[in-house]
């Protein structure tokens, strides 16, 4: 058979028609995503851009870096950021310590009981944040439930300071953040192939060895995913630390409120917001490096 002579004028069968159909389809897809793109633009891009531009204006509305210069000049700002990251790290760490065994337990029991136990994690999650925070205050304060019980039982003699300090802040925050760690971690643990652990046992691993050498490494992507969510949420958390910290633990979010309420200084508040946003992105960037490393280690999916 001789090859059919082709020139660019002599087009292949239906090539134009098919190309047009292809283009029409991609236009349609674009048209369908347009509402979402517009919504994102209106709700996220414009406000953040506005915030960003505000931070570069001084009190007279002139372009200047005064808001950022003040942040460097006053040590208190640095301290607030330090506290914010400290509290976020500690909360994330405590969430892992408490959440990992919980997620492990949930992943090991038969599926039909998971709903019941998951409810204990989710029920508080569904109730008002403010209600939970004040409930903790009731329990933790000087004459609160915990102190009264402990003193009645003779565990300690004088009331222990549980609220209005770092302790209270952490207890409240860990309780509220726990579901954000447990849910992705549980999902990751459920995905671990039960047979991989059987294989480990078959190859001579004791249950403890199988847990540390197979289960834990395979659950790490879930730990990383959950920790990131918790950490980022903590960085901007306001209600719980404000109530349970009793003014002793000042986070960036509280500082922003203070500036707005006391000085009505939008520029300074915006600058704080921008720095918090940038540092959050920095954390995510570092973490994504780490995550990429993970996906190489654990497979693409």
């Amino acid at each position: 058979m001789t090859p059919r002579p082709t020139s660019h004028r002599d087009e292949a069968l239906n090539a134009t028609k098919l190309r047009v159909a292809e283009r029409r389809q991609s236009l349609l897809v674009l048209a369908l995503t347009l509402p979402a793109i517009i919504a994102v633009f209106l709700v996220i891009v414009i406000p953040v851009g506005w915030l960003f531009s505000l931070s570069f204006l001084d009190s007279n509305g002139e372009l200047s870096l005064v808001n950022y210069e003040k942040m460097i000049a006053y040590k208190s700002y640095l301290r607030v950021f330090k506290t914010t990251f400290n509290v976020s790290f500690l909360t994330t760490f405590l969430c892992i310590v408490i959440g990992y065994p919980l997620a492990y337990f949930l992943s090991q029991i038969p599926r039909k009981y998971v709903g019941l136990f998951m409810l204990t994690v989710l029920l508080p999650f569904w109730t008002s944040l403010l209600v939970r925070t004040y409930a903790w205050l009731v329990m933790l304060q000087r004459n609160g439930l915990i102190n009264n019980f402990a003193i009645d039982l003779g565990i300690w003699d004088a009331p222990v300071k549980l609220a209005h300090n770092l302790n209270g802040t952490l207890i409240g925050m860990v309780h509220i953040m726990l579901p954000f760690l447990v849910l992705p971690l549980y999902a990751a643990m459920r995905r671990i192939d039960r047979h991989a652990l059987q294989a480990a046992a078959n190859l001579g691993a004791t249950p403890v060895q199988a847990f540390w050498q197979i289960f834990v490494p395979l659950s790490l992507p879930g730990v990383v995913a959950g920790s990131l969510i918790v950490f980022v949420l903590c960085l901007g958390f306001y209600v719980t630390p404000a109530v349970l910290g009793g003014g002793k633990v000042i986070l960036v979010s509280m500082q922003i409120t203070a500036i707005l309420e006391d000085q009505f200084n939008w520029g300074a508040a915006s600058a704080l917001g921008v720095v918090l946003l940038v540092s959050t992105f920095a954390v995510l960037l570092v973490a994504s490096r780490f995550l990429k490393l993970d996906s190489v280690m654990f497979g693409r999916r």
Partner: protein
Amino acid sequence: MTSDTAASLSISVTELTKTYGKIFALNRVSIDVKAGEFLTLLGPSGSGKTTLLMAIAGFNRPDSGRICFGDEDVTVLPPHKRGVGMVFQNYALFPHMSVFENVAFPLKLRKIPAEEKRQRVTEALRTVQLSDFAERGIDQLSGGQRQRVALARAFVFGPKILLMDEPLSALDKKLREEMQIELKQLHRQLGVTTVYVTHDQREALTMSDRIAIIDHGELTQIGTPREIYNAPANHFVASFIGESSFFPLTKDKSGALQYAGVTVGEVPNGATHDNWTLVIRPERLSLHAPKTSKINDKIYFSGEITELVYQGETAIVMMVMADGHSLTARMNTRAGNDVDSLMGGQNLLVGIDKKDVIIIPGEAS
């Protein structure tokens, strides 16, 4: 591999019973696997064959019974102390480790020195033809390669018993057939006692020294592939292996068994069954024109062709007998058989060698 003095251990399963609720997954199953033997547990899904394998591996605890490896009673021994190698159906490789680390895992647990570990892993990978893949991640391997890694990992630590749970079921047909031969060669090379679970009768026939047929949690028959195929113990075995036709037999006063007035055999000595069934293997038949002269060593039935299926090396000829029973013949398509001249509706004489006649107790269903 290292040539151990005793490279393999026998397995002795005695009256093993396991129930799930009221259902017997295993009902007083006793099987002896000889040292170095390749035994296949064959049965349909849900027959209990995997339950039995998992009990041997130690992953499920039977309700009663005994499992011995050699002279050692391992019935209550946890899986990590049994020292058997196992290949799982979905391979169960460790996705966070490289090929090398996967295969080295059992050696690492046994605290084998680094140099020897490297040597043994390299040798195991060479045995399964994956020498160039040691540093690959598991997600960079094809199904067949994963299969080989799982295999290397299962034998690298020199287990005396190797268990395989439908290891080839996820592979495509061509690769599966290649791997069957490779597994068989590997078994010969390692000399390790192997228990292999499959629901694929052809795979069982291809690979096994002996086949144990399991149905509804009970051991139905155990024997070499030839014994199982040529002398099935009952209807289940006969229908599960091969694509046979079944004809009910009538017994006359002298004890001769007949079908359509033709005597096909006699009731075996001492047998007390009332009903008997004739089993006909499709490839053991010959087709003749209705008026052909008959040979003494053969018996003949007449029937009509209902369907012809051409499959390349063979053709399936479906027929219906005078009493309505259907018969399947599989003919080689060589010119001498004249398969191409057959047509639906044609009347033929079907011949079968008397030695190829299989008679089993029970009714034809």
